[in-house]
């Protein structure tokens, strides 16, 4: 389908260009407003945000905070991924576990996680451990549920064939189950990634002395919006990099699908 729009002058506009134009327009409007009507103690124009980058990156405390957040995010995502797969595959592969364990997963998932955030701080302290644990509690469910859904799509005939040819559990998992799960696993990983990020940032905002979430609060309270926006941009870059890693891994893991087509 061709989505290009032809205007009265006969100019063809593609959605991508229009989208870029809107973004540019918004940034320009933000810049202009930042110099005219907006209070510089509350919001800074984009140019000031860009100018703030070298300043905040030169501060060793903030470099440390960025590393801490990145470490928490990676650790939480790693644990959520391993645990999500380790729990999801056995739950999804067998009818018995599916019927008995899945309702429990859904029950726990239905608890609004923010309400138990103070408990995570109570049990894990205000250091990185509580952020990682809270991140895991957010990230694990999308991964687990998608893995369960993916494992259910595995053809029983394929499992039987592999078993009758003498494949061991590990081999069956690597050669039969995993390739089948790739699409739903990776959509789970992407959802889990942004959920983990949400959990880590929430926990950092709630109570900590380090990490990006803590410093955004410091910057806001000291009326330094340029520094705050720059930190948010760092965080966004972090999220984009991790998302890109997941996407690349997905492409590599599903190579056989493309060739099969």
């Amino acid at each position, binding site marked *: *389908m061709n*989505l290009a*729009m032809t205007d009265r002058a006969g100019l063809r506009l593609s*959605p991508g260009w*229009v*989208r870029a134009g*809107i*973004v540019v327009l918004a940034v320009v409007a933000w810049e202009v407003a930042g110099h005219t009507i907006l209070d510089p103690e*509350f*919001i800074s124009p984009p140019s000031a945000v860009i100018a703030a980058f070298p300043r905040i990156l030169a501060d060793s405390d903030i470099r440390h905070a960025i590393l801490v957040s990145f470490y928490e995010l990676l650790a939480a995502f790693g644990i959520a991924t391993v645990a999500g797969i380790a729990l999801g595959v056995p739950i999804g592969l067998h009818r018995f576990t599916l*019927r*008995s364990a*899945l*309702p*429990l997963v*859904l*029950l726990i998932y*239905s*608890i*609004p*996680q*923010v*309400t*138990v*955030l*103070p*408990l995570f*701080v*109570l*049990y894990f302290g205000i250091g990185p451990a509580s952020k990682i644990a809270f991140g895991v509690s957010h990230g694990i469910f999308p991964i687990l549920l998608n893995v369960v859904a993916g494992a259910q799509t595995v053809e029983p005939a394929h499992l039987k064939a592999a078993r009758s040819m003498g494949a061991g559990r590990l081999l069956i998992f690597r050669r039969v189950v995993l390739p089948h799960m790739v699409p739903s696993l990776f959509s789970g990983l992407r959802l889990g990634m*942004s959920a983990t*990020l*949400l959990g880590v*940032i*929430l926990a950092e*905002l*709630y109570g900590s002395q380090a990490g*990006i*979430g803590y410093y*955004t*609060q410091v*910057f*806001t*309270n000291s009326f330094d*919006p340029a520094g*705050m926006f720059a930190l*948010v941009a760092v*965080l*966004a870059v972090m*999220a984009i990099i991790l*998302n890109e890693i997941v996407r690349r891994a997905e492409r590599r893991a599903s190579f056989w699908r493309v060739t099969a087509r």
Partner: protein
Amino acid sequence: MTGTAWRARAIQIGFVVVCVLGWIYVGNARLISPIFLPRFDRVMTELLRIVSNGTVFVYLGVTLFELFAAYALALAAGLTVGFLIGRSRFWVAVFEPLLNGIFAVPIVIFLPLFILFLGIGIESKIAFGATYAFFPIVLNTIGGIGAVDARFVTVAQSLGATRWQMFKRVLLPAALPVIVSGIRIGFLIGFFSIIGSEMIAGLDGLGSQIVQLGEGMNTAAMFAYILFVILIAAILNTLLSLLQSRFNRVAAAS
């Protein structure tokens, strides 16, 4: 409910019972300090006390007021923007990736800005909850309208439907199930983000009460409040899914 649904419910109830029994055992055997895990009976007494003397409802009132104000804003904005964008494939192609991209960034990182602009009172909570609830509503509205079978639209057009008729008779009914599920998700996300923002920086409402009790090391009362919020969330969720399924049945019948 079917047989499997009953069995699932039975397993869930059994699990909760086992957890409560384990909790009572741990409390009686003094395995964990009551600061970390207060005794079950103390939490229940506390829960009964705050419900019967009405303190919890004062906080609930504040939180629900914030929630409904935020939700009204998010609904109005989300449905309007969603319909405006969703009507044209071109604008969907322009805006959908943009909105998805913004939603992927944790908006909670901007919470300090909300507080800075609007103060630590209820205004910042309303604005924050509305921002979070807006995205599922607008994205599902766009998705729902986009998924309307193009043949319906062509037929209506060839029958000479006006814009308003097209909207009311074709687009709206066909897109409604998806929109309604967005409306439901938006409500729950709005609820949780309001509780979260009350916890991080609030003076009033259930979230801030939980945090204040925790900081005062009054864990039994904190557990009671947490259980109460979980119950409220479960009730709201059940009501919404009942509404949704009733709604879908009516829509399917018409």
